[in-house]
């Protein structure tokens, strides 16, 4: 890694001036960003890629150069969230892959204010920042971020408290279904029968014994104005949900399903395909709650068999062995998917442009929004 300032770890900086200068610099960069996507007018000259990068037609909150694995679904999810949330935000981050791969000192991949403190307190920090903003009379939206470990398990009480106190914070959980940054340990979010380093498949068990926690229902039960699940495979739907959650005054929550090629054991190229199949099989339903009630679902056109999803991932490889328990667990996962489809009434009656097949339709000039 190249740094210009290797020895200067303890150098103190007067933040009043520094922050002002940084803000000015940032404002300039953002002005470019939010300007048109016209290439700078310089007739006859080719533009360098670096120049073009500065003139992208969408706001970029998360920049290239971060250290996520190839094909990381969490990096994609965070990119899409930061893009849709826009520049007027302050982010907090729990410890986890996203925090680590975006902030390798002395660099940061974030182009918006971002703060990390601990694994368990992203929501608490966000609540404090939000209170400070309120005190300053500012409307800047605060977004708390965490992995599934940081959200379902260790950060859960801080999150529940933040929701209960009705802070104006959007909490985004990047759900990659295990503690990835420490080497794939099971979490409350790991699906039933998935193998992790702490729920290995073997003589004793076929992967995780317990079920994936239904966190979204628990969150919704806080009676908050908006809580939804989303997937990196459906970016138009994801963006809409982020914007909706940003608009609402009060606590809102998004659970973004993010495949992890390393932890799930799939090719880096199929990240989006895996995420799409999770939705299309009914294993990861896309649901919106308002004040605790289901307010909308993405209907499934022709639900696919769960094996389409499972067979792409090594964490489910043992379910395709000759062991009679393998068959049983496959059927178990299918039954769980069927149950979810029934519970949320996901089966679409007829083809719908916003169902699991229609929502990602493209045309020349972009996705059909």
């Amino acid at each position, binding site marked *: 890694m190249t740094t210009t300032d290797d020895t200067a770890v303890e150098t103190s900086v007067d*933040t009043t001036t520094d922050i002002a200068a940084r803000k000015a610099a940032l404002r300039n960069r953002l002005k470019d960003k939010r300007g048109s996507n016209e290439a700078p007018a310089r007739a006859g000259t080719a533009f360098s*890629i670096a120049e073009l990068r500065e003139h992208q037609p969408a706001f970029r909150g998360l920049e290239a150069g971060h250290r996520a694995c190839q094909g990381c679904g969490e990096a994609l999810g965070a990119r899409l969230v930061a893009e849709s949330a826009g520049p007027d935000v302050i982010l907090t981050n729990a410890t986890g892959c996203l925090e680590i791969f975006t902030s390798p000192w002395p660099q940061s991949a974030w182009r918006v204010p971002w703060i990390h403190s601990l694994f368990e307190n992203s929501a608490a920090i966000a609540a404090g920042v939000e209170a400070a903003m309120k005190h300053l009379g500012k409307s800047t939206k605060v977004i708390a971020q965490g992995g599934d470990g940081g959200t379902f398990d260790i950060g859960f009480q801080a999150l529940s408290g933040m929701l209960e106190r009705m802070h104006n914070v959007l909490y985004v959980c990047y759900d990659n279904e295990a503690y990835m940054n420490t080497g794939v340990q099971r979490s409350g979010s790991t699906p039933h029968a998935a193998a992790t380093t702490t729920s290995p498949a073997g003589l004793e068990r076929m992967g995780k014994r317990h079920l994936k926690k239904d966190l979204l229902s628990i969150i919704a039960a806080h009676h908050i104005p908006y809580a939804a699940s989303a997937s990196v495979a459906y970016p138009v739907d994801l963006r809409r949900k982020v914007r909706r959650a940003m608009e609402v005054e009060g606590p809102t929550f998004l659970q973004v399903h993010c495949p992890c090629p390393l932890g799930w054991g799939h090719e880096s190229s199929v990240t989006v*395909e895996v995420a799409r199949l999770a939705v299309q099989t009914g294993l990861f339903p896309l649901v919106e709650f308002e004040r605790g009630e289901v307010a909308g679902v993405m209907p499934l056109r022709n639900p696919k068999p769960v094996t389409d999803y499972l067979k792409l991932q090594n964490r489910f490889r043992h379910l395709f062995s000759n062991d009679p328990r393998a068959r049983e667990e496959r059927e178990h996962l299918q039954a769980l998917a069927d149950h979810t489809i029934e519970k949320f009434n996901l089966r679409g009656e007829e083809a719908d442009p916003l169902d699991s097949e229609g929502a990602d339709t493209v045309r020349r000039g972009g996705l059909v929004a």
Partner: protein
Amino acid sequence: MLVLTRGGYALPGTSTDFKTGTWRTSRPQHQHWAAPCHSACPAGEDAQAYIAQVQENHPREAWETIVTVNPLPSVTGRICPHPCEQACNRGSFDTPLAIHSIERFLGDEARRQGWTYPVDPGRGAGAAVAVVGAGPAGLSAAYHLRRRGYQVTLFDALPEAGGLLRSAIPINRLPRDVLDADITRILGLGIEFRGRTRLGVDVHIDELRSDYRALFLAPGTAKAKAWSVDGAVPTDHRTALELLQEWVAAGSLPTPQSVILHGGGNTALDLCRAMKRAGVKEVHLVTASGLPGPGTEPDDIINVVPRELNQAVEEGITIHPHRTIQRLLFRGSKVVGVEMVALRKLPTKSGRTGRIAFEGTETLLHADMVIPAIGENVEPTGFSTLLGGKEYFRPNNPFGRLDHTPGVFVGGDARGDRGTVSAAIGDGRLAAIAIDAYIRQGDDPEENGRDTIDFAHINLNYFEPAPRVEEPILPVAERTDTAEIDGPLSGAAITREAARCFSCGNCLACDNCWTFCPDNAVIKTTALAKDGSHYVFDYEYCKGCGVCASECPCGYIVMNPE
């Protein structure tokens, strides 16, 4: 005062100092494949390219894309059997694009709007080239030579240009005002047309070879193949082509009670339909080919425009597929019917395919008249030395260059293995390119080296089923000899149809790669990138994950190992 330690913060976006591109082991690259519709078009049209322009609402540019290869889209849009649609990848998803409808619409729109051919004959060597035969092959060659700046003289034995398009193809399939207008526009580019001038009678090949730098011969096929069934020939028999040409010219047709046509092409089918409409009660078509369906190999399907076949069946033509006539039934010297036998195209002992008749499947069919429609050979008058006793010209190259006769090129039906308007048009274009190279003493032009993209490369998740537009077709009761049977489609219907195209192997500008790259390594630009797309890869940061390649709907991104 609040103090942050240097270890406590970082400046925004500084991660770009770290070039993650060094992690990559394979790189995404744009690959412009040939779309199946393009590879299958005998005229060489790139339907993917012009459909994209229709999608962008640039119909004129779309038409210009077509006419850089095919000057007659209103003709091919109507009567080409459109192998492009058989090849269309969308056919494996729901139904193929109605490419012919889009093509026809653009051709008709050009005439309506008076768009002029994008031709600037000013450029080029200006040498004189002669084209013999003003059918689609000759017209195409003349047009493409003119585009390259040559002085072209187009000879034809008939008073007017058009070849079989004018003399044989039924008017209700190809209205003559459409044909006339397009031919007038082509000749108007400064092509000298000399009608009523038959090579071998009014001019001679040696004359032409000395007066012109190069020659393109496209006389088509006019000499009926000898027809006999096991040695027997009805004394008064007429061929289908003769009868059709008389009908097109004069409107007259024989009207027996019943008739049997023997053959499996457009000529046979067109005559069947004309006779049926003229009042013949029973019209039978006996053909060795099969009807489209599960039991028929693609190369064994009857060689006619698919919708013509449906219309013929609607009109009450009885088709006897996979049959041949093995005996004529006579009463005295008069034919009263035939004996048919079932047959199939099968591999024979020699390895080649042959037609095998099956003993025990013989049936009798009675009729007042039997008409052969088994095809024609080149009329050798005027060409006999060049033909060297053969039935067709058989050049050994796609450009139609004849060995041993420098500067002479042939194309169209006269090659024997063509048989469609679009193949004739393609031959004319390739010959023009080769003639240009010959006159400028350059090398033969390179052939299109792009591989064809197959269905497996299309990411179907991004497309929705959508019904194909169908042109309005006159009900059977309203069909006449002259009114066009297949009606036109509206601009709105064409736009809807174009939107169904997968854009096989070329960028759809859908933004997927830009949206899905976890590393912001796809950069979007309003300026055109070198490859014509609006996206560039930033290899400083691309980690080579392959997500963009998997999620590109059109197979335009491939991962190449580094």
